[in-house]
Each structure stands twice: as structure tokens, then as C-alpha cells.
């Protein structure tokens, strides 16, 4: 392995001109206005202001991505905002509708439990064997219906593969924000075998969901129940479930990211993330390492928020299957050896073109899905402030 002295950084690409960056940003501005101001939404002034702020925010971030030619830190502003604002908007909605965060049995029977994407892999086997969905929601329903969320997940997955975890997941931003707080990691050595744990959790939860005929992960292990919608604790069992949610949230989403500067819940626990990894195989966009330029300094490995690079994978010139396409490794590489890549093309042949194509697709999805969530969160804050 090369020491730092051997790493001769290539010249960083110059910032793109302002006019050219503005031109490249223009489609995203139009898209933001189209998505956040479409008819039937934002009827009250606070929601309109929230939508306008969101459109400016998303467009400004994209402009900075164009201008600086870097991705990760601008995407992170969006993603952390999404992670913080989603619970604010969601909890406010719950409090307005039912007065508390717990899911009462009446709401489950009425099919009014909002469906998030987490249970999608858990529904597959019960649906295949019995044509039954093991979730107390409704199949139809414009906002939180199962069909709408599955359709959205499928579309975003087709476009981004596991990029979902960096541009669409409304939970990951909390731990990414936590990981960004400390200047350096207190725990630096992480046993890479923990990377297999999400697959084990996925397998266990899929089989348990089939056997017990309930969304086992949502019932027992989802850390984000602590900040969204917990099980109404009607008995001792409910108390145990809620205690598990809170402990997992405190440990995996707050404490460990602060100590390791990694997205620990995503890296070591999330079964949906493991499931989503499979779709990196079907996505046309990927991250590649150009062996001609790479001196294995391992800066990329250290920068990766979910341990998707290993010495072996770097030697092979590729990321691991769990890569979330966040761009941290690309931005940190001093020799521009790590590049955005379109499958089938030569590595390092016009990587900026590949990055632009990916970013247009990913940011369009981010504005459509995350933008509406951010708008709701901002509107909630405005509701309390103004």
C-alpha cells in the first residue's frame, strides 16, 4: 500500500462557470416548480411559502453540485434536512389527526396505518403464498396507500438502484446528520464482518413475517418507530416493543454514528438496505475505480459512510454491492480515480457525463419525493412560528 507521500494528487477540476452551471440547473428549477406547485397542493399561504423555500433549496443545492463538480456534501444537506423534517411533518400530522403518536387498534382495523417502504421485502413471501398483505393499511389511498408507495419505490429503484438509500430514504438522514457532527471518529476500527448483519436481519425478518404473518420488523425492530408511529402500548408486550424501538434508535441512529462517523443503522442493521442492494445489479449507474490512477491510499474507504469499499473491492476497481451512490468516495479521491460510471462504457471516459445523467435522474426523484416531504416539514415549522 502506498504511504501518503506516494499519493500525488492530480489537479482538481476547476469549478464550472456560473453561467454554464445556471444553464445546467435550469431543468431542475423547472422540475422543482412543477413538482412542488402542481395543482391541488399548497392551498394555504404557509404551504406555498414552504414549497417556494423547498424549491429554492433543492435548486440551489443542484447548482452547487454543478458549480463545484462535487456531489456528497450538497446531497448531504438535502438528505439531513429530509431526515429531520420528515418526523416533524409526520408527527404533526398524527397529532392533528388522532392526538397521539401511538397506532391504536381502531386505526389498524380501519386500514389507516401509513405504509412506509420498510415492510416491502417482508410482504413478498406472504403475498406469494396466500395473496395476502400482512400490513394493517389500505391498498388504495393517494397518500399512504400500499399501492402508491410500492409504485413509488419501484420507480425510484428502477432509476437509482440502491441510490434510494442516499436520495429517497426519509430515515437515513438522521444518522447521516449525527455522523457529520464530530470532527473525527472515536471508534475507527470496525469489524467488516458486521456488513453481513443486514442480510441476516433481512432473512430472519422475511421468514418471521411469513411464519407469524405480521410485518415482523415493524412490530419488533424498526428503530424509526421511536420518531414516527409507535405501537400503542396497551400491555406489557407493547411496552417491550417500544423499549426496543427506543434503544435501537438511541444506539444505532444516535450514538454509534456519533462515535464512528458512519451510517451504522444502514451499514449494520437495515434489512431494507440489504434488499435494496440487490437492485444495484439492475441499475445502469455505478461507481468505478480506475486502476490506472488509483494509488490505494484508502481515503475512499475511510470516507464511505456505509463501508461499501474494501481493499479487495478497490483492487477489483469496484464498490461493494451495498454502495449507496452518495458520492463521498468520488469527492474525496485526490487523484480522481473514483468515477461515476455508466455500465457498458469505458471507465473514466467522460465520467462527468455519467455523473450528470445520474444526478438529473436522482435529483428529479429527490425533488418529487423528498421535496414534498421537506415542504410538509417546513410548513409545519411555519405553522408553529408564524
Amino acid at each position: 500500500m502506498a504511504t501518503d507521500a506516494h499519493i500525488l494528487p492530480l489537479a482538481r477540476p476547476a469549478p464550472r462557470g456560473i453561467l454554464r452551471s445556471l444553464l445546467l440547473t435550469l431543468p431542475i428549477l423547472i422540475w422543482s416548480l412543477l413538482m412542488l406547485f402542481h395543482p391541488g397542493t399548497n392551498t394555504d399561504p404557509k404551504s406555498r411559502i414552504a414549497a417556494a423555500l423547498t424549491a429554492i433549496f433543492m435548486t440551489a443545492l443542484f447548482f452547487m453540485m454543478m458549480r463545484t463538480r462535487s456531489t456528497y456534501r450538497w446531497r448531504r444537506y438535502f438528505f439531513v434536512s429530509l431526515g429531520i423534517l420528515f418526523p416533524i411533518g409526520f408527527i404533526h400530522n398524527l397529532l392533528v389527526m388522532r392526538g397521539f403518536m401511538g397506532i391504536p387498534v381502531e386505526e389498524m382495523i380501519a386500514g389507516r396505518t401509513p405504509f412506509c417502504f420498510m415492510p416491502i421485502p417482508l410482504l413478498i413471501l406472504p403475498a406469494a403464498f396466500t395473496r395476502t398483505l400482512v400490513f394493517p393499511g389500505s391498498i388504495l389511498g393517494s397518500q399512504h396507500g400500499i399501492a402508491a408507495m410500492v409504485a413509488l419505490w419501484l420507480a425510484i429503484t428502477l432509476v437509482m438502484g440502491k441510490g434510494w438509500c442516499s436520495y429517497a430514504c426519509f430515515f437515513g438522514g438522521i444518522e447521516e446528520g449525527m455522523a457529520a457532527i464530530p470532527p473525527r471518529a472515536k471508534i475507527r476500527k470496525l469489524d467488516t464482518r458486521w456488513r453481513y448483519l443486514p442480510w441476516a436481519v433481512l432473512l430472519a425478518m422475511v421468514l418471521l413475517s411469513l411464519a407469524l404473518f405480521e410485518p415482523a420488523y415493524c412490530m419488533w425492530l424498526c428503530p424509526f418507530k421511536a420518531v414516527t408511529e409507535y405501537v400503542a402500548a396497551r400491555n406489557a408486550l407493547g411496552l417491550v416493543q417500544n423499549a426496543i424501538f427506543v434503544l435501537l434508535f438511541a444506539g444505532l441512529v444516535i450514538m454509534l454514528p456519533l462515535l464512528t462517523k458512519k451510517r451504522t443503522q444502514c451499514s449494520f442493521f437495515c434489512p431494507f438496505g440489504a434488499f435494496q442492494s440487490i437492485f444495484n445489479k439492475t441499475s445502469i449507474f455505478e461507481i468505478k475505480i480506475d486502476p490506472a490512477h488509483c494509488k490505494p491510499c484508502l481515503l475512499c474507504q475511510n470516507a464511505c459512510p456505509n463501508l461499501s469499499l474494501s481493499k479487495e473491492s478497490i483492487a477489483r476497481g469496484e464498490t461493494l454491492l451495498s454502495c449507496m451512490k452518495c458520492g463521498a468516495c468520488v469527492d474525496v479521491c485526490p487523484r480522481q480515480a473514483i468515477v461515476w460510471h455508466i455500465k457498458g462504457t469505458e471507465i473514466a471516459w467522460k465520467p462527468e457525463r455519467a455523473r450528470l445523467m445520474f444526478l438529473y435522474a436522482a435529483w428529479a426523484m429527490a425533488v418529487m419525493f423528498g421535496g414534498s416531504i421537506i415542504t410538509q416539514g417546513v410548513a409545519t415549522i411555519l405553522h408553529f412560528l408564524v
Partner: protein
Amino acid sequence: MKISAKLGYTAAGATVLAALLTPFLLMGTFSKGFVALGLQVDEVYTGGPKVRAIPMGAYSINVHRPVYQHFLQSEKPFVQLDWRPVSALPQRVSDAVDVDGDGQPDLRVSFDVPRDPKASLRVDVDSLNPRYQAMRNAGKERYSRLIVRVDNAILVRVPLANP
């Protein structure tokens, strides 16, 4: 440019196009495709399909098909009965219900109807047919054994004794 690179760029372009078409076309198409699969939400939550309604004057009792458990599901088999509309119910309901439609009452179900829609409910069920379990002062302990108010109906679920 190699053919593989041409295919790669074509697929990448198609992906960007798919992203732009998502809110206008793909979401609706995928959503309709999912609905067309004909999947149903688990009857433990929905209570199963309604099989008949028993008119009781101003209100009626809907009788649902019995619900049975799948695999290792912890809920017992049950049958759901709905009293609706709540606004037409007397302060105290005590009805003999013919669940299986053979002309003989199978259960006597008794509960108070509080004016406050958020007030907790309690139900007594006397079993007149050994197929159904009696319940005393039951609330909402389990999906298979409960009384709850959902919108404009009061739902009672009675466990089956001999499924």
C-alpha cells in the same frame, strides 16, 4: 464507440426519461399493476368480507365471514360483527345474533354505547352455540377478541371455540 457503450448510454438516457415520467405515467401504471395483482390486506386486520346484514330496525348488524389464522399467526380464529350506524344505536345494546344464518341465535352480545366517541367500550358475549366463545367485559386485548368503534360502526370480534 463500442456497441456496449451505445447500449449503456441508451439505457442511461432511458433511465433519466423514466425519472421524468415517474409522476405523470410510471407511478400510475405501477400502482394499477400492483392493484391488478388482486392482493388483499390480511383479514385479521380487515375482519374479512361481509356475508350478510341483519336488519334491527333503525340499525343493522353486519356479519362477516369467519377469519382463520395463517401459519403460526398468534391470533385465534374469530368472527366479526358490526353494529351500524352508531348514531342509531340505543344506549344499551343487547342483541341475539344468528351468526351462521341457520335461523337460530348463536350469540347474545351486550354493550353500552357511550356518547363520547373516544370512550372505551366493553362487551359481554353469551355463547348460545358451542362454536363461539363467551366473553366477559372484553375490551380490545387482541385482534380476535375485541370491541372497538371504527368510524360509524361498533365492531365486535368473537373467537371461535371449535374452528
